[in-house]
């Protein structure tokens, strides 16, 4: 049997199509695997590289489930530091092997440079300020000047200095903070390749403590070891020296997680993304491979019949098909490896560039990945070829004696059953998605529903082609003349092949169209809600980490200001059903909230909002038993417990937050950051926007970098930024778009090449090249129409679900330009895929 498929290379076209489809599969499996590997890599300690042991607070949040057994504990990572007492230093310096124990305090800063430019960070990350005591943890070494000797002095990292053009003696100030200028006393360099050098600035220890704001506390304690001490041993001794404390002592690889708190969750959402996209891509590849394999097997019906006539058993024919597919799968695995790893490294670089993942994440080309990629391609090839192989083996040998010109009329009952179940599944998922209002779940369910609908479309399409053709028959005949008639006949008679083609067209329409519509709808709703939400007359902000809290009373004292409320984005862990859910929240300073924010409160009231209160969004409470008046257990960003009474539920939460807490919650200082990112200002009656702006702008002297924008400007800016698609969406869209486009061209070209004999007959009978091309063009048009309609049908349920979820109305917001681009692209590819092979076949067989 080896000879059989080895020499099948002589009829390359259908097998090439299968190979392309399988290679795409292997490519995406490799891509997903590479990303998964990258995501699983541990983040090394960089700024803390010289700290052999790092002591932090317990950076997880544990919630025990309720009274019913089994009582389990769920732990959730905290995204802010649960601070440690600096008094631990005395205990730690006494531990043998400890050379230095340092209380590390970090303050996000933005520098106002001598030329009044504001620098918030470099490509390595945002600027952070530390006390000079932390310099030894990297270690930083002074390149020029000296350490900060007093409160007005600052040492900048070499990378920061280079990027900002700073030299010793320059004067800088901190954006958003009132106070003095700082003089650059020195420049310090981190070890080569360590990005900390481009992110860090150092204050004197006392100044850092003042900026840090939490007296007697630190984010973490870094311990520098005596030379020759083993980190693991030191860690054990340190742990022993701190008995009974809720502390975490780490060394080695685990320090990276202590240094960069977001890394773990970034990486885990990165790997979730990779898995989800990988699964979707694999399923799409399955569709595509199945139809290409079916086409290539069906093209050789004569051969199978001949083999059966000459005495091959059905089992032998099946094995021939399967072996052929296995070989192709293996080849595909090899072929897809390099493109897959290339794509993965591009993806990772993009994610790092946009700071979705830490810069240390890299994707390597690991040749071992060829094996799972090839295995996946083989498995997919076998699965998709299974039904085709059965069909090939069941070919009646008597067929070899005749001409199998027309396909079996009725698709088997298996197809109907599968199609009906897929349709039912899709409807079921959609119904349950409409009920469940937790927004992330809903999106996942929506994409599962879309897959189910696409599967249903793929299975049921042969039944649909018939009625579709009947509808198109008259227009094709009238508009297309004889070529139109030929096209119509082809659609009618070759329903299976046309069905496969229609599905190949529907796939990109449904997928890309669905994503485009969902994005546009969500963005549209977010913009609408945002402008409705903003009741304030003006908004004050500053670049970088934001403004010092003292700005709020300062603004309130300005003439023309009737209300000023500061907002700080933070995280709150809402315990519902024993699970501490990570909830995006805004912390507000005291003030008349309804005067500046119109949150569309549906129950309760925000009139008197203060410590001990919490307001939740509709999506946050939907599906739970939380109601206004109840007390709910929550934890603030640094893990401090905050039991709060629900005073209001609001609905305008998209683009805002799902919870509102007072900034002074649990005594204040537990928000993970101490700066205010925005101040919303209500104007006194009779104050013009221009006057208001002028009064507030005068504060810019004390708060460098302060900016004030009127409501209309803010709304306009939001609309503009929302309309720019996010990088992730673009990247994933491009990848899937690539996959389905190649699939489209592949399937259609294959189907077209099978018409070789018919074209020959038509030419002999006297059809001109123009007529044949015209027939192909009309066929392309008909197929495009059917495919687009099918695709739209498949995405409708998904899109309306998501629209209902985000906007409360099932009517989606259709981005006509994107829709036109997608339909245009699909039409172009379809036309190309059908016409190019046709033209080639026409001209090749001239005079045959």
């Amino acid at each position, binding site marked *: 049997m080896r000879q059989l498929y080895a020499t099948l290379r002589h009829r390359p076209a259908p097998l090439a199509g299968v190979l392309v489809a399988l290679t795409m599969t292997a490519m995406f499996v490799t891509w997903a695997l590479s990303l998964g590997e990258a995501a699983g890599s541990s983040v090394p300690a960089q700024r803390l590289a010289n700290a052999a042991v790092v002591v932090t607070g317990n950076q997880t949040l544990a919630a025990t489930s309720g009274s019913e057994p089994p009582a389990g504990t769920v732990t959730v990572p905290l995204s802010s530091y649960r601070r440690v007492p600096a008094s631990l230093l005395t205990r730690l310096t006494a531990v043998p092997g400890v050379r230095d124990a340092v209380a590390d305090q970090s303050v996000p800063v933005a520098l106002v440079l001598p030329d009044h430019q504001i620098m918030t960070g470099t490509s390595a990350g945002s600027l952070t300020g530390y006390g000079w005591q932390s310099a030894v943890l990297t270690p930083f070494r002074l390149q020029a000047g000296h350490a900060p000797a007093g409160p007005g002095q600052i040492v900048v990292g070499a990378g920061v200095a280079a990027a900002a053009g700073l030299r010793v003696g320059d004067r800088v100030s901190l954006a958003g903070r009132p106070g003095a200028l700082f003089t650059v006393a020195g420049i310090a360099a981190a070890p080569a390749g360590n990005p900390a050098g481009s992110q860090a600035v150092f204050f004197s220890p006392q100044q850092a403590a003042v900026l840090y704001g939490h007296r007697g506390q630190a984010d973490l304690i870094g311990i520098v070891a005596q030379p020759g001490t083993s980190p693991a041993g030191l860690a054990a001794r340190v742990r022993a020296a701190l008995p009974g404390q809720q502390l975490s002592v780490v060394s080695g690889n685990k320090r990276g997680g202590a240094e960069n708190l977001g890394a773990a969750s970034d990486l885990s959402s990165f790997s979730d993304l990779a898995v989800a996209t990988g699964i979707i891509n694999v399923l799409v590849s399955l569709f595509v491979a199945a139809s290409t394999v079916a086409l290539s097997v069906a093209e050789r019906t004569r051969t199978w019949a001949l083999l059966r006539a*000459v*005495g091959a058993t059905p089992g032998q024919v099946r094995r021939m098909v399967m072996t052929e597919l296995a070989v192709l799968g293996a080849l595909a695995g090899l072929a897809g490896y390099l493109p897959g790893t290339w794509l993965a490294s591009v993806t990772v670089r993009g994610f790092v560039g946009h700071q979705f993942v830490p810069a240390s994440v890299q994707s390597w080309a690991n040749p071992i990945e060829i094996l799972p990629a090839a295995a996946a391609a083989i498995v997919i090839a076998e699965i998709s070829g299974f039904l085709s192989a059965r069909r090939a083996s069941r070919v009646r040998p008597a067929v070899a004696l005749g001409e199998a010109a027309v396909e079996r009329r009725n698709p088997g009952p298996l197809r109907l059953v599968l199609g009906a179940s897929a349709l039912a599944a899709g409807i079921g998922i959609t119904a349950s998605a409409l009920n469940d209002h937790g927004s992330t779940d809903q999106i996942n369910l929506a994409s599962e529903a879309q897959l189910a609908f696409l599967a249903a479309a793929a299975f049921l399409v042969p039944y649909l082609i018939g009625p579709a053709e009947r509808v198109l028959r008259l227009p094709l005949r009238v508009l297309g003349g004889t070529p139109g008639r030929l096209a119509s006949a082809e659609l009618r008679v070759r329903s299976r092949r046309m069905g496969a083609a229609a599905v190949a067209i529907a796939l990109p329409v449904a997928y890309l169209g669905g994503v485009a519509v969902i994005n546009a709808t969500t963005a549209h709703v977010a913009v609408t809600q945002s402008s409705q939400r903003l009741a304030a007359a003006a908004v004050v902000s500053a670049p970088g980490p934001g403004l010092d809290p003292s700005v709020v009373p300062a603004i309130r004292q300005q003439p023309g200001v009737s209300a000023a409320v500061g907002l700080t984005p933070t995280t709150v862990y809402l315990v519902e059903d024993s699970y501490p859910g990570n909830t995006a929240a805004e912390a507000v300073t005291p003030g008349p909230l309804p005067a500046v924010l119109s949150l569309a409160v549906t129950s309760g009231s925000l009139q008197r909002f203060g410590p001990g209160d919490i307001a939740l969004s509709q999506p946050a409470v939907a599906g739970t038993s939380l109601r206004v008046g109840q007390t709910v257990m929550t934890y603030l960003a640094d893990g401090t417990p905050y039991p709060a009474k629900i005073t209001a539920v609001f609905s305008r939460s998209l683009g805002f937050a799902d919870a509102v807490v007072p900034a002074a919650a649990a005594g204040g200082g537990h928000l993970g950051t101490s700066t205010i990112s925005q101040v919303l200002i209500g104007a006194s009656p009779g104050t013009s926007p221009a006057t208001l702006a002028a009064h507030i702008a005068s504060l810019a002297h004390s708060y460098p970098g302060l900016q004030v924008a009127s409501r209309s400007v803010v709304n306009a800016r939001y609309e503009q930024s929302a309309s720019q698609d996010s990088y992730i969406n673009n990247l994933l869209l491009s990848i899937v778009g690539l996959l389905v486009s190649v699939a489209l061209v592949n399937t259609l070209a294959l189907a077209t090449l099978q018409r070789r004999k018919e074209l020959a007959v038509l030419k002999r009978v006297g059809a001109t090249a123009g007529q044949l091309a015209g027939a192909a063009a009309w066929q392309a048009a008909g197929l495009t129409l059917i495919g687009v309609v099918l695709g739209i049908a498949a995405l409708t349920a998904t899109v309306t679900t998501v629209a209902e979820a985000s906007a409360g109305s099932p009517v989606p917001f259709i981005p006509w330009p994107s829709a036109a681009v997608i339909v245009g692209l699909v039409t172009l590819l379809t036309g190309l895929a059908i016409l190019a092979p046709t033209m080639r076949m026409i001209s090749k067989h001239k005079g045959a």
Partner: protein
Amino acid sequence: MRITTGDDEQERPAVRGPAPLAGDAAAVELAGVTKSYGRGRRAVMALDGVSAVFAPGSFSAVMGLSGSGKSTLLQMSAGLDRPTSGTVRLGGSDLGGLSGRRLSVLRRRRVGFVFQELNLVPSLSVAENIALPLRLDHKPVDKSRIRELAGLVGIDGLLPRLPHTLSGGQQQRVAIARALVTRPEVIFADEPTTALDPYTSEAIVGLLRRAVDELGQTVVVVTHDPTVAARADHVLVLDQGRLAGVVSGRSAAELTTILRRLGEQGAR
């Protein structure tokens, strides 16, 4: 239905009836074979109670007009399809009781095939096409035997070529070589010469004749070409699914007349 020739009023009795000859098991034996397609009103009766015997070592032709059921008869005999009723025995084995798989095995070991066209697997070379039944049966392929057969049918030197590079006549020769490779009990040929010119047809039929005379094969040829049928030992004439009669020793011209008479009778 009796067969008469135009100028000879004597009726010749059928030389062969359903009884086997001289104690040898018949190569192929059909008894009351009926094949109908479709159901009810749309039923088409391709064969209607046909009984026939093909003796071993004989060259038989099955002749008739288009639609007479010749191809269906061949399909039944070779086990390519199952009759609606009646029995088919091949080399003594009753085909009715065999599963699809067993039929396949039987076909590759005991039956050789030559079709009208598209005989060969396009992606295999001539040598591989000839060896195909042996490979399907997992039997070792003796290269010298392939060469011997190639020489016998007159295609020496074409062994490494691909089918689409050969002429129609050459392809048929390859098909015959393949049919001979397993030394089958019966070789069935369905209209093997219809697509060929008279000179090449003559050569192909000659090959089949040699297979019978020199190699002792049994050959059954389905054809509507009287010149081919004339080379056979016996001609079974089919008319509208029924056996009209068995004749032998007729010339091509006589056979042509028989056919024409059948056609005229049918038209009336």
